[in-house]
């Protein structure tokens, strides 16, 4: 249940994230795709997608879709003050075949989580936004 207050907050977040660097990531989200980059120069994959390769700093990068599979590297949970203290499960997920972890919410109770657990990308809608939320495989 989104309250009026949290709607204002989400709108602010949306406006803000539009301004930020991860435009490619946002574009992917709108299509329910997890976008990453492949560097043609050093042949590595990176997340989050950038307009250059963070390892060799060349601009020889292309956007590719990641299958959305990964393993939980670490996890925790915290009460969400904007929805009456409901706990949110958070995890760092090692994305398969990529140099990069994603910080994400997970659609599972904290008690159901374990390190190394296999998860896949899922998506939540809030206001006019699509937000990544991984789920157990």
């Amino acid at each position, binding site marked *: 249940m989104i309250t009026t207050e949290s709607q204002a907050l989400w709108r602010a977040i949306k406006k803000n994230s539009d301004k930020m660097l991860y435009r490619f990531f946002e574009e992917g989200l709108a299509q329910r795709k997890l976008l990453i980059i492949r560097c043609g120069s050093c042949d590595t994959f990176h997340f989050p997608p950038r307009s250059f390769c963070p390892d060799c700093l060349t601009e020889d990068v292309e956007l590719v879709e990641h299958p959305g599979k990964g393993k939980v590297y670490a996890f925790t949970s915290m009460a969400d003050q904007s929805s009456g203290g409901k706990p949110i499960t958070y995890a760092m997920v090692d994305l398969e075949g990529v140099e990069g*972890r994603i*910080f994400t919410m997970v659609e599972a109770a904290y008690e159901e989580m374990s390190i190394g657990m296999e998860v896949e990308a899922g998506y939540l809608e809030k206001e006019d936004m699509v937000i990544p939320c991984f789920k157990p495989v």
Partner: protein
Amino acid sequence: MGRDRNVCIVGYAQTPVKKFIKATFLDLAARVSIEAIRSSGLSKKEIQGLLITQEGFGNFVNAQLFAPRLAGHMRLETKFLGTFECGGMSAAVAVKMAATEIMTGRLDTCLVIGVELKPELLGDPAFDYTSLADRSAGTYGPIESLSNLRGPLPFYAMSQQRWMMDHQIHPRDIAPLPVLLRKNATKNPMAQFRDPIGLEDVLNSRMVCPPIRLFECCPQSEGAAAVVLASHDVAKALGGKRISIRGHGEAHDSTHYFPDRGDGGRFPCVERAAREAYENAGVSLKDLDVAEVYGAFAGIELMNYEEMGFFKRGQAPGAVQEGKTALDGEFPINPSGGRLSLGHPPGATPLLELIEVCNQLRGEAQERQVGEPVLGLIQAEHGMINGSVVLILEREE
């Protein structure tokens, strides 16, 4: 910083650490500066530089040109002026910058100020939520912000989870640290929390973000501190007890908050900064007598001890339990009460650490005095420990 060109700390002052301090940024910064200048014995005209941290962590109102405004407020004419921002280690970086300027011979003295006051909400959601979202996305990152992240705690929790897993550390092993820090703080009139607590209080406190419980967290505090640095010649002319900066180290990892690769249960920058500081000062670990360490959470503080080599990996909890880091232990750490009990106003924290170590080295820490220390260490960090500064201070004979 070299034995021949060392920089001394000739004056300092701090406010008590509290949940709220009723003051404006400019006045608080000015008053604590005036007190620090007074304690140094220098006159206002002799202060040649003014460095300050941003207006509190996450403040967004009137955040520009703070240092020049303060100089105008105090009618202070200088040769070096600036606002330094690098998260929780801002004030430590400012000290290092000031010391470097003095070492080059360009400045003889410099004032460094750290202030932390919480942002004031204006009551207008359009403004307040934009600011909150700005802060969240700007500080942690837009993806993290999308996931409703409002603070760094989940990152710390997950890093601590990895460390606990790697070394089979049980929550019961961590609980003695908050108890010890609180015990130290009962002897510190500047501390925010001074009522003693026991192991069960820690273990039964609310689980905030597993594995971190409430009593393992620092409070979000307000406070201010200022220090006056001077060249060795100036310090000598002023007379009195002299504390010099004997060495320093600084290191930053190529990550922001939770590392996107590598071992998430380690803080390599802390290890690198400490190693550089020991080498730069020409001291070994066993020479150190006292330390003030930056630990926003109990488990993270213990991880910092290990990164700096104080104890072997996985053994910091046992060392604390055995009393090695207590006021009467072989290596007292955080005699001030640390971030957990002294309180944690990030903008000022590195200076509060420095002031505690100076008090200890000067033998002026009263009930908290840990013998007659000669060498002391302070450490500060930014992000979820993606960068760190280590300074080694020495009491000169």
